[in-house]
């Protein structure tokens, strides 16, 4: 995928996050903010603003049939894997035509049709699920691979060890992507992480790892292409450590005032869209062309958001479907 296409994917993720952020104000009581019933997006909304290059750069090299598991901060991965932004926004708005019929919302966004097996409200929980899916693919002698996204906070959970060890022992086709935004909710990850971090933990299990600049979409993309090809060809897991920065708070109503102000302002100077735009200008793309592309993507998201506002709520009886087939209808 060329840089312009990667830039467009990142623009789409940024526009989605911005629209969701606006629609979520007052959606949850947290961080000193109170909830109002007027908010369109309710509950905790975890934005990946600033982390777009990781999702775009990795997913650019996945095939439609490849599988992906994500985190609670999963909109970018889902969009980059090919999900429809309108259906996703409808899900965030809790509408019947959302990807999950309104049953999951942001934290459980999923689109199995594009191989996106789900965001997860539990840190690190997607890791063992990704490994199991890869185990099945190997037993079924399929050529698909699994991309498993998780954050730097997840490497301190047990399933990280259990999942990576499993993938290594059974030689499974998984690309583990540690999207390292350097903060675990509101705590600096380095202050709660022993040893050399994610790469050295993978290497201690015998798994190869590669570190990239997670704010440079070309760096992510170039390495991801080689690693995905390798994982597919050899059925060996590999860890990609992408260092990035979370520009927003833990959730959308978190102003993240616990961070030094200059850290944030410096991060905005190095953020991935600005960086990619600079490269595109250097390569001869006209500013007007890039602005027009940005306007077009923003307009698409405005339309998607309007669709989500206008869409129908799920019927109340939908609360009782897809629980389980056995004893369906017996709720007490």
């Amino acid at each position, binding site marked *: 995928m060329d840089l312009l296409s990667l830039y467009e994917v990142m623009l789409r993720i940024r526009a989605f996050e911005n629209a969701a952020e606006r629609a979520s104000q007052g959606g949850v009581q947290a961080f000193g903010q109170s909830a109002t019933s007027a908010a369109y997006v309710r509950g905790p909304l975890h934005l990946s603003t600033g982390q777009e290059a990781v999702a775009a750069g990795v997913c650019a090299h996945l095939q439609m049939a490849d*599988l992906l*598991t994500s985190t609670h901060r999963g909109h970018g991965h889902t969009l980059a894997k090919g999900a429809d932004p309108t259906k996703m926004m409808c899900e965030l708005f809790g509408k019947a035509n*959302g*990807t*999950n*019929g*309104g*049953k*999951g919302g942001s934290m*459980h966004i*999923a*689109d*199995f*049709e594009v191989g996106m*097996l*789900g965001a*997860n*409200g*539990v840190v690190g*929980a997607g*890791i*063992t*699920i*990704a*490994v*199991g*899916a*890869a*185990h*099945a*693919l190997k*037993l*079924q002698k399929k050529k698909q691979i699994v991309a498993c996204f998780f954050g730097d906070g997840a490497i301190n959970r*047990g*399933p990280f060890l*259990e*999942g990576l*060890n*499993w993938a290594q*022992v059974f030689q499974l086709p998984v690309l583990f992507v540690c999207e390292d935004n350097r903060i675990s909710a509101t705590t600096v990850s380095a202050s709660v992480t022993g040893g050399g971090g994610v790469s050295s933990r993978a290497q201690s299990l015998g798994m190869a790892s590669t570190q990239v600049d997670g704010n440079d979409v070309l760096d992510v993309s170039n390495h991801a292409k080689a690693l995905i090809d390798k994982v597919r060809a050899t059925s060996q897991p590999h860890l990609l450590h992408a260092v990035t920065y979370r520009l927003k708070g833990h959730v959308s109503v978190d102003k993240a005032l616990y961070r030094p102000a200059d850290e944030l302002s410096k991060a905005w100077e190095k953020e991935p869209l600005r960086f990619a735009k600079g490269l595109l200008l250097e390569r001869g793309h006209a500013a007007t062309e890039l602005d027009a592309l940005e306007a077009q993507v923003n307009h698409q998201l405005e339309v998607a958001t309007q669709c989500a506002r206008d869409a129908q709520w799920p019927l109340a009886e939908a609360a009782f*479907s*897809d*629980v*389980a*087939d*056995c*004893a369906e209808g*017996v709720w*007490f």
Partner: protein
Amino acid sequence: MTYAQAAAHSLSLSMDKDDAIVALGEDLGRGGVFGQYQGLRDKFGPDRVIDTPISEAGIAGAAVGMALAGMRPVVEMRVIDFALCAIDEIVNQAAKNRYMFGGQGRVPVLFRMPIGLWSGSAAQHSQSLESWFTHVPGLTVIAPATAQDNFDLFQAALTLPDPVLYLEHKELWSLQGEVDTQNTLAIGKARCLQHGEHLTLVTWSAAVHRCLSACAQVAQQGVSVELIDLRSLWPWDKDMVYRSAARTGQLLVVHDAVQVSGFGAEVAASTAQVTGCRIHRLGAPRIPVGYSPPLEDQTRISVDTIAQTILQLVGEAHVA
């Protein structure tokens, strides 16, 4: 055949029919810690009878992923106590997946996790935690008491599209019983072991056998008990229990699990609400299982205790 062999044979027949079934867990290759996978590695090979690391969260989480990718894993947790290491994977992932993703996926995983006392195994290998899982929407909970039921219910569980908690009892592994391999059984149908007039006795798993002995004891004193083995706890056979309790007017639920917040409370409350019958529960005291025999015995629901409780309840009813 034994209760353990019945399950192994049942699993073997299901694996013959369905290539998507794999078994995974610790020490399965040598037949499982209780022999409940005996012979399966030789027959199906290491790709379908998979020896895993000691990683309960990994096993349960991998099973969810396998299921989403089209397989039907049988997960061995060794004892239910160890399944607590995988509680997120069972409760937040397996049980919720179909619902929270709006029906996009299915998680047909059979979680096999033996319950009950296992002499001298103390606090972390002896628990009966069935009510932890009956509480969770999305899970089916099965607790067979006989070799035939273990054969039948194992096969039935392997046809469901959703996660199943399959709770065998460690004191039943060597229990012998005739097994008709042509038999089939629907999940949610209880078994009435004997009809009676004075009291309805509801139980499941290994306690069924002790309750049967207690019924024989009290019969000598002219007390006639209707004994029901629920076989599955979710769904449970409300029709059979309600009809029986409405007729006898008196319900006793017996289980090996701690009585407080045990599943007996659910059966008793629901039955009283519908039939207005008198209710009583008999379960273990709310203490951890001790190692030494005199300590362990305090958590054992014995035949004598069950018989005494029946006589007391029937006596009280007559006085009333």
